[in-house]
């Protein structure tokens, strides 16, 4: 797994540029380095037999890219598609190569510079989002935003799928 050493060391998220976006009336931030592009919400093909947090796949100029719904992932309800709905395409380096994945967001806000002083360590409780998904909390115009560790979110997605597949295989094998 891609455990971030800085998290283990108890340090906070690094300063730098962050993309902020809104999802279910909450503001989140991701490091700009992992964002490849932002596209309009478009034709999505559903993939059967998958957990609801995976919405389906899109055709991104010839490449097939899976799209996840963070709302579902964080235990909320499915994101409602509106006129400002976007897909943020993330490119995440993992142990065995880069993974390209899209996430649906209600709206993309802005790219903001977050200085070290504006970042606080992740709270160990008190959030409805799993603590290990949070890199830190950023102070943005007197408002706290959740800084996401997307590689963790995605590897959790992988794990869940794997578990489900094994469960399915087991179920069909012994029935």
């Amino acid at each position, binding site marked *: 797994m891609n455990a971030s050493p800085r998290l283990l060391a108890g340090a906070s998220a690094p300063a730098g540029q962050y993309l902020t976006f809104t999802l279910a009336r909450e503001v989140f931030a991701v490091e700009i380095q992992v964002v490849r592009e932002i596209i309009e919400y478009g034709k999505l*093909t559903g993939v059967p*037999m998958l957990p609801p947090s*995976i919405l*389906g*796949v899109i*055709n991104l100029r010839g*490449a*097939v890219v*899976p799209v996840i719904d963070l709302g579902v992932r964080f235990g909320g309800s499915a994101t409602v598609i509106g006129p400002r709905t976007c897909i943020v395409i993330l490119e995440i380096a993992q142990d065995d190569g880069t993974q390209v994945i899209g996430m649906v967001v209600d709206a993309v806000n802005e790219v903001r510079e977050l200085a070290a002083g504006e970042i606080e360590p992740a709270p160990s409780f008190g959030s409805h989002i799993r603590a290990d998904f949070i890199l830190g909390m950023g102070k943005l115009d007197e408002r706290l935003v959740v800084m996401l560790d997307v590689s963790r979110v995605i590897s959790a997605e992988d794990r869940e*799928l794997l578990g489900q597949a094994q469960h399915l295989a087991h179920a069909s094998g012994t029935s």
Partner: protein
Amino acid sequence: MDMDEVLKVFIAESQELLQQMEEALLMLEHAPGDSDTINAIFRAAHTIKGSAGLFGLDAIVAFTHIAESVLDRVRSGELRFDAELTALFLQVRDHLGELVRLVDEGIDLSSLPAEVQPLHTQLGDCLSRYLPSTDSQSQLRATERIERGHEHGLSADHWHISLRFGPDTLRNGMDPLGLFRYLNTFGRIVSLVPVLDRMPAAAEMDPETCYLGFEVAFYSDADKATIDGAFEFVREDSLIRILPPHSKSDQYLELIRALPEEDMRLGEILMRCGTLTATELQEVLHTQVQSQQRAETRPIGQVLMEESLVQPPVIAAALQKQQQIKDNRNNENNLIRVDASKLDRLIDLVGELIIAGAGAQMTAQRCGHSEMQEATEVLSRLVEEVRDSALPLRMVQIGATFNRFQRVVRDVSREISKDIALSISGGETELDKTVVERITDPLTHLVRNAMDHGIEPADKRMANAKPAQGRVWLNAFHDAGSIVIEVGDDGGGLDPQRILAKARERGMLNEGQQLAEKDVFNLIFEPGFSTAEQVSNLSGRGVGMDVVKRNITALRGTIDLDSKLGQGTTVRIRLPLTLAIIDGFLVNVGQASYVIPLELVEECIELNSDEPFERGHLELRGQMLPVVRLRELFEDDSPRPRRESVVVVHQAGLRAGLVVDQLLGEFQTVIKPLSKVFSACPGLGGFTILGDGTVALILDIPSLLGQLTRVSEAPQRARIEA
């Protein structure tokens, strides 16, 4: 010229040649003394030596040279390839492979790395023992060895020197006459034949240009280096060949091949080379005249052969040279070496072309312009042809991979002291290069497993009335759009009871859980399962079969196993032919489109809606067919249309029906790699992009079939077992 590029070619070629050498050596174990095979080994060594010389890889040159000298003695019949020499040469091959690998890694071979040096010296010494007792150590250093005193050499007891002076020799201040005078200081010129074939007509002749060539018979006790030294200053633009006394006939052959004269008559070449004396030649000419009188014009080569005046190989070489002069330019470039990544790029582009073509066709159909439609028809047919000719470019025969196992089986059978033979069939079966590369490891594991666990010890085999020699085989064939590779052995087979016991012991099965025999065997592909009672060097550590299975699954393949206790085991691997583009069959369910690989579609039938299928079965021409609605399987809640169709798919003896809304027909499917998120998804074979840009799912029929048939058959099987 980019030396790095050329060096890459050298490395690739050497690896290929070493592979050929290994195959030839292994063949020699079965047919010792086969001259073609020995020649193949010799050629491989010789080519490697020659190319290594070009790159100044002296370590390889010197080492290969000794090996070549030993091979030379084998060729001339002085030595025989016995088991010991073969084993030595296999080591030599491996060592050369190691040296080439070092070159590939960019390690300077002028001082050998410490880890290879001892073996290098040791192998050199071993080889030198096979050489006549001339100073064998010095041969390690010298790149050119003087060959003299062979009993099998020809009668001429003098050196033979062929000289073709370069046109600028005189202008450079060199005098051929001076050279001969110098030669006479340490020897005696027995005879000297000028070769004036290059001399132009008097009008065109430039007095300052040298047109001369000489064939010299030279008697001397000096060594080759001394003689060679005489020509030091003319070597650069002249052609100089020096043959030691008593050279063997094939060295004369080489000389004939190396000389530039094209129109020189055969008899003259032979005489000048010292192979024939003038009297012998005259006799031959006489015979030729006679045959001409009989109104038969026979080539002089044939005459010579009939008169047994020269050895056939000499004539053959001379004839070959004449032929070569004609063919030289035509034959050279039948094969091209292409960088695999260029091919990949091409295949990718063909994939994009297919998608774009499908889009154009769809648009044309929509606007109903008939000329436009015709044009896109033509276009898509051409694209299809392009695809069909582009895909085979990546296909390679599996034979080369199979042959590698001869060595594995040979080495392993010695290691575990079992007498085991490997037989190979279906080597000409072609499959995608990527697949071939990634199948080698799993195959190695399976072959080793078969040898270690499959084949019983000889005494046990004898007791069971089996031949003492065990047999392992590799087989490959095409079947319904996939390639099947079999690894079989005639060993003890698997004991289902033991596997079951083991599985229970490991907690992989619940007490009382019943499994069909096939499923019992498949347990050995589960992680952490190994039935070997003793852990040997080769296998039995509990890692293995599950890794094999994972590798095969990663290639979209399946693996299963047949075994009869006491008779042997066959492992069957089924792989897709290609990983890039397939012929698909497009179907619709609700809003979604799915692609089924066309080769797996057996037939399509209409589903009569007033004939509901019960418990997932449908009667098709008197046979029960397990059937599933894709709509239900995929939990699609869109309303069911009035008419549905059943697509009957089959693979590996399993059949099932898939109920779909609409049949959309054939579709060239470019397989897009499955994102890691979906790698564990059952029933999902990949994605493709349709002409209108939407994504469609490719169904993984084998896994669906497995699920369906297992679900439907399990109760019946359980009953039989109980």
